[in-house]
């Protein structure tokens, strides 16, 4: 008995003329495909020819008149993009609301998007005119956008406001300069702090977190003696600690003229070796990833984390007794990774004179009244805001002592620095901490990659 031919689901080559009988005149399948192809080609040609050119870093249009410090124009709306989507979001919303109350003529449309989204959208959005007039950005990202002309220099604004380095800290004030022009006005700074569990350290006979390499070694030994098997956890993602130690040992990521990658020198190897030794000696487990949770649930006694942990502990582990202090000096001199949120003016703001003035008013007001921002856990950049009670009462106040501020190491203004970082030293740190490669070899490979990317970027950006 033969099985009847069951019509199986037809594949792409079995349907067609056979099922239709004789080929009919009129629109056949081939004509349709040809039509679709022509339509697509026509659309493509339209897209490619003419239209807006994604322009280069041309000289920015000078503001029609210098900013006077106040806004007295007609009612206007400006757009503000930022990446404050976490616990710091409400504080920024409060600041924007305060600004609108003080400046009723200016309406601010605020968008909080995740930082990676903000960075990937801002270039094309401002080119199309539907992006932000003011954007909050990290200090290390300013160069990439300044080189593309997405954000414009603010020297005229700082001149008319009379802002100088003494209003901020020298390091963060200088950090917003790229190719001798200022592209950002700092809002705040944040850094890596040392948090410790007060009861666990007390049980080991310690009063506060260690401040030097010897104290650190002694503290971890004492804690292990008191029953804490892994008192300090280090994770493969801790590249900020690597940058801090690199500076402490006298090195830097790039040379002064930003042409050479120098993090593989002796200082870098010393820094990464210290990190790796923590795992080798058993102070830290080898596969730690979630340091915050480990600290909050008592698995570790000391942790080095950015300042967001303060609000995180308040939200999820309220009642945890912990102390906070500056990052210890493991190397030859104090030094700690720091980054900063800056306000930047985009190129689309000056398309309209009123919007340009209003945007500048927004930036200057926000910078002056940033004391409330201390609630987000960051350190206000403005010196006057750091005198304010709102900050001095905050838990991050110990990190704003003059000596600590002087030790802040901001990332250098290298266009494309984040992409270079991801494929070079961040990967080397990860591989070394996970034990997959010796620190020296990992850094050497990373330096080669970074140098190549740096050279390519410099050629593209024309610097």
């Amino acid at each position, binding site marked *: 008995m033969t099985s009847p031919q069951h019509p199986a689901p037809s594949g792409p080559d079995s349907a067609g003329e056979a099922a239709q009988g004789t080929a009919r005149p009129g629109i056949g399948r081939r004509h349709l495909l040809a039509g679709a192809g022509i339509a*697509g080609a026509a659309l493509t040609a339209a897209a490619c020819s003419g239209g807006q050119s994604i322009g280069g870093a041309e000289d920015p249009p000078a503001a029609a008149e210098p900013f006077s410090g106040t806004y007295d124009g007609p009612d206007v709306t400006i757009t503000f993009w930022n990446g404050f989507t976490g616990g710091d979001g409400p504080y920024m919303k409060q600041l924007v609301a305060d600004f609108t109350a003080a400046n009723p003529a200016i309406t601010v449309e605020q968008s909080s998007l995740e930082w990676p989204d903000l960075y990937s959208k801002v270039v094309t959005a401002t080119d199309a005119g539907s992006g932000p007039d003011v954007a909050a950005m990290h200090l290390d990202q300013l160069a990439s956008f300044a080189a593309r002309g997405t954000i414009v220099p603010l020297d005229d604004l700082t001149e008319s406001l009379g802002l100088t380095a003494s209003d901020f800290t020298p390091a963060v004030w200088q950090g917003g300069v790229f190719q001798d022009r200022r592209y950002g006005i700092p809002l705040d700074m944040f850094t890596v702090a040392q948090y410790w569990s007060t009861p666990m350290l007390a049980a080991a006979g310690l009063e506060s977190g260690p401040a030097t390499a010897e104290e650190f070694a002694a503290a971890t030994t004492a804690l292990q003696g008191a029953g804490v098997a892994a008192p300090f956890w280090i994770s493969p993602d801790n590249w900020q600690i690597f940058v801090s130690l690199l500076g402490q040992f006298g090195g830097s990521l790039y040379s002064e003229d930003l042409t050479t990658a120098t993090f593989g020198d002796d200082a870098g190897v010393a820094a990464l070796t210290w990190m790796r030794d923590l795992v080798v000696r058993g102070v830290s487990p080898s596969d730690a990833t979630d340091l915050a949770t480990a600290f909050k649930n008592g698995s570790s006694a000391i942790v080095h984390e950015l300042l967001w942990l303060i609000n995180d502990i308040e939200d999820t582990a309220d009642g945890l007794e912990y102390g906070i202090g500056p990052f210890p000096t493991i190397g030859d001199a104090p030094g700690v990774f720091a980054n900063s949120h800056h306000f930047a003016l985009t190129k689309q703001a000056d398309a309209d004179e009123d919007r340009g003035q209003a945007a500048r008013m927004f930036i200057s007001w926000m910078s002056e009244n940033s004391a409330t921002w201390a609630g987000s856990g960051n350190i206000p950049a403005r010196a006057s805001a750091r005198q304010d009670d709102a900050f001095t009462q905050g838990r991050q106040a110990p990190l704003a002592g003059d000596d600590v501020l002087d030790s802040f190491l901001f990332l250098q203004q290298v266009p494309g620095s984040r992409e270079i970082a991801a494929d070079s030293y961040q*990967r080397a740190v990860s591989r070394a901490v996970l034990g997959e490669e010796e620190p020296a070899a990992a850094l050497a490979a990373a330096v080669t*990659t970074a140098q190549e990317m740096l050279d390519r970027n410099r050629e593209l950006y024309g610097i």
Partner: protein
Amino acid sequence: MSTAAPSLSPSRSPARTVPLGARRRIRRGSPVTPYLFIGPFLILFAVFVLAPILVLAWSSTRQWILGFDSGGFVGGENYATLLSGQGVLSEEFWRGMRVTAVFTALSVPLLVTVPFALALLLNLRFRGRTLFRAVYFAPYVLGVAVVGVLWHFLLDARVGPVNHLLGAIGLPDTTAWTTSLPAGWVSLVGVTVWWTVGFNAVIYLAALQDVPGELHEAARIDGAGAWRRLWAVTIPHMRRVLQFVVVITIIASANMYGQSALITQEQPGGATRTAIGYIAQTGMRSYDIGMASAMSMILAVCLIAASLLVNQVFRLVGKV
């Protein structure tokens, strides 16, 4: 004398009283109707699928970096850079392609066979069958971000429940599921199978139900056991569906990005960054549209070749 057979076709007498067109005009609807029906989709397809592909091909021949009036037409230079194997771009891209190939090689066999076994089970008659069908399909409803974030925490070596449960039943509980290899591959493939097994199973189920019951009965009468029936009756009938599932699974696995970005976060040290992951980084973070387009074209060509290969294999196997 020939008797004219009863004519089935209209008589061809020259003296017509009814025009030719009227006799042939059997109302079957306008010939334009089918094209009107597919028109909306065709427009969407042309604008959102075809045009971008053409733009992609065009931009892959240019040096195009957002924010710069850079280069212009460079012909095959982007491809030459990528295919040379020298330099960071090329090395990282082929690294990503290797990761994609490994993941595809590990996940496709599982994603073709496990859902098939599942479909065979779900095709049996038992109480609660519909519930089980829903349960196995349910994970597919979740988006990749949900699945990625969820499993990233579940598989965490220190604070994740998976290791905790393994320890509770006496198995080793220190495996770093998200930060080491080969445990990372187990995580990625395992999560992907959990997530998409339902989808393939549903397709197989529909095909299984198409297999006529008389054939099974006939085979049973002829003395074939369950295993023999599977190979002699079921699978040959599902050949086309199997081919379809293999091709779409290969393509879906080769396009994997979310799981490696969220679960292993491309650790350790970028060793689980797929080709799409590197294309996303190049295009959306480094804004290098030209190079990213060239990478996408190379990946697309590889996938087309893989699909053709699968079709060839099935054609050959079908002839055996």
